[in-house]
């Protein structure tokens, strides 16, 4: 790992990304608040798992961080440098420090390029080495992701989903970035292949020491891979904690509901016997509810929740910030399963 462990690789503060929908001509122009004020920090060599339902804005954060889209507001410091308002030209030299792996390996590889060209493309764009040197590094990288060197002559359509995702990983890592954004890298793969890719990513991460923003909706993957976990709901982070803390002591009612809904390999041994069933849908990010964004579905909401936005602060501990009014230093988070209407008790 790197020596400068204390300085953050990525520091995001007050990140907002709003999209406009509807046309000006037809009167109603909506603002969709995909990301609405997000703070997060990733230390050197740290894997931060970003969880949330689809539409919660987690992929948008990833796109902002690699500057595939321009944030509406907020700052993003990559290795201390604010990249939130850099032009594409200014961003170019910094791109060797951050790369992204996409969800769908079928659309993330150029079908007209061979695997060797695809993996070597970042080197080429940054003018690294001669052709021969680049070829050597490509071969090396392919072996590191568990592909044979000869694969370089293949084309993406000849590969399986898992092999493609290995190629995408090789491509993202070949410049030795300090930060890798993995945007649901395994959710498009067969479950049998998912484990091998997650393991590979983790091995490489330990080897190369890069930090990782791992975006997913799959709690079991998050539990396996993350050092720290951030839970998103409707464009905001509602809870952040170390993996152990979060899974042992989820404080936000939404986190509790998420964890209670995750399938468990051995239900009989699970102490948790009740599942918190949330009713209703996630509110539209173009018309978020006032106050706490979760209060419309929260089983333990109090009147204050619908008027006042809870800040993301560490109540029980500075390392475990939660955005909920009901968290107290003495008792921790509220017990969402005690909510009256929405909790279901399973007899077994």
């Amino acid at each position, binding site marked *: 790992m790197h020596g400068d462990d204390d300085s953050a690789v990525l520091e995001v503060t007050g990140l907002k990304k709003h999209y406009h929908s509807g046309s000006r001509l037809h009167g109603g122009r909506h603002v969709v608040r995909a990301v609405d004020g997000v703070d997060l920090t990733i230390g050197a060599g740290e894997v931060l798992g970003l969880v949330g339902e689809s539409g919660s804005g987690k992929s948008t954060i990833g796109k902002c961080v690699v500057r595939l889209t321009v944030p509406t507001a907020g700052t993003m410091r990559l290795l201390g440098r604010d990249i939130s308002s850099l032009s594409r030209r200014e961003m170019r030299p910094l791109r060797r420090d951050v790369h992204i792996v996409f969800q769908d390996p079928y659309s993330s590889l150029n079908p*007209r390029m061979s695997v060797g060209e695809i993996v070597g493309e970042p080197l080429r764009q940054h003018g690294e080495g001669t052709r021969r040197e680049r070829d050597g590094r490509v071969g090396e990288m392919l072996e590191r992701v568990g592909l044979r060197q000869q694969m370089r002559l293949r084309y993406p359509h000849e590969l*399986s989903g898992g092999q493609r995702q290995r190629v995408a990983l090789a491509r993202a890592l070949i410049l030795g970035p300090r930060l890798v954004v993995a945007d649901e890298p395994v959710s498009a793969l067969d479950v049998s*292949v998912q*484990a091998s890719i*997650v393991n590979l990513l983790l091995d490489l991460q330990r080897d190369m020491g890069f930090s990782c923003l791992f975006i997913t909706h799959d709690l079991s993957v998050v539990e*396996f891979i993350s050092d720290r976990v951030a839970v998103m709901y409707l464009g905001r982070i509602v809870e952040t904690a170390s993996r152990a803390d979060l899974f042992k002591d989820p404080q936000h009612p939404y986190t509790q509901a998420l964890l209670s809904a995750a399938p*468990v390999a051995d239900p009989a041994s699970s102490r948790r016997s009740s599942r918190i069933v949330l009713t209703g849908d996630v509110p539209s990010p173009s018309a978020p509810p006032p106050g706490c964004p979760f209060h419309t579905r929260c089983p333990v909401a109090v009147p204050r929740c619908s008027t006042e936005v809870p800040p993301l602060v560490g109540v029980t501990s500075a390392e475990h910030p939660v955005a909920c009014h009901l968290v107290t230093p003495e008792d921790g988070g509220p017990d969402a399963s005690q909510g009256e209407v929405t909790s279901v008790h399973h007899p077994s």
Partner: protein
Amino acid sequence: MSNPFNPPTIAGAAEAGSPEAAVLEPARRWRRLRQRFLRRRMAIIGLAFVLLFLLLALMGPLVAGDPSEQHFDAVLQGPSFAHPMGTDDLGRDVFARIAGGARVSLLAGVCSTALAMLVGVPVGLVAGFYRGWVDPIIMRLNDVMLAFPFLIFAVGLAAILGASLRNVIIALAVAQFPAVLRIARGEALMLREQDFLAGAIADGTRDAAIIARYVLPNSLNALIVQATVAIPAAIIGEATLSFLGLGVQPPTPSWGVMLTHAQPYLAQAPLLALFPGLAIALVTLGFNLLGDGLRDVLDPRSGR
């Protein structure tokens, strides 16, 4: 929660694909493309047709004789040894005229299409890639041009420019331009949503390189198909323009001129119309087969 992911194992050959029996040595790209091309019989036939007519166009009068030489003692004759395709109403040798006309027809077909592509493809790709304010402006102008039927547009332009082969090529190119632009833009619009384009941006690739290395190669299929349709259409277009007196002037032969010239004699000498028609059909077929072959060869997804 227990975890479905067991302790890390070296991710390996579990899904590493079929055994690679024959992996190509790092061969020259061209050699590979040539090999792929030579495996396609229909593409070779297409190439042969196109080359045959190209040869005819280049050295027509040398092999077939003077297309303008008149023999009033031998008009509207059927095929014979002296005149393998017969003679027309002025006693001119039809084979010589087919050979001579190949030059005009191929020039009009290929050059006008190439010109339309040369301008239409970059403009279309840029419009589709950038969207923004450029795209609607270009596309509305394009709609105005598309509103005119291809031939009427070409006829109008040729009438303004004056009758000559050069002007026919320009008129046909301008008339083809909107369709080419539309197809190129559509491809770029579709491709810009693909993750691999976002990946290229994440590499730090410059826009020009993204368009040249990512967008253009992936638009080739559609563009080649468009070209193989456009070349025959332009050949017919030249025929129409020449028929209306807006194209090449007599006595210069062109297949279109010959076809229309044969019309009054359809009852007496039906073969007079057959040969130029056949020439157009064969060139069209040739370009279509060649285009299909090229499309397959250039697309790595289409097998060996």
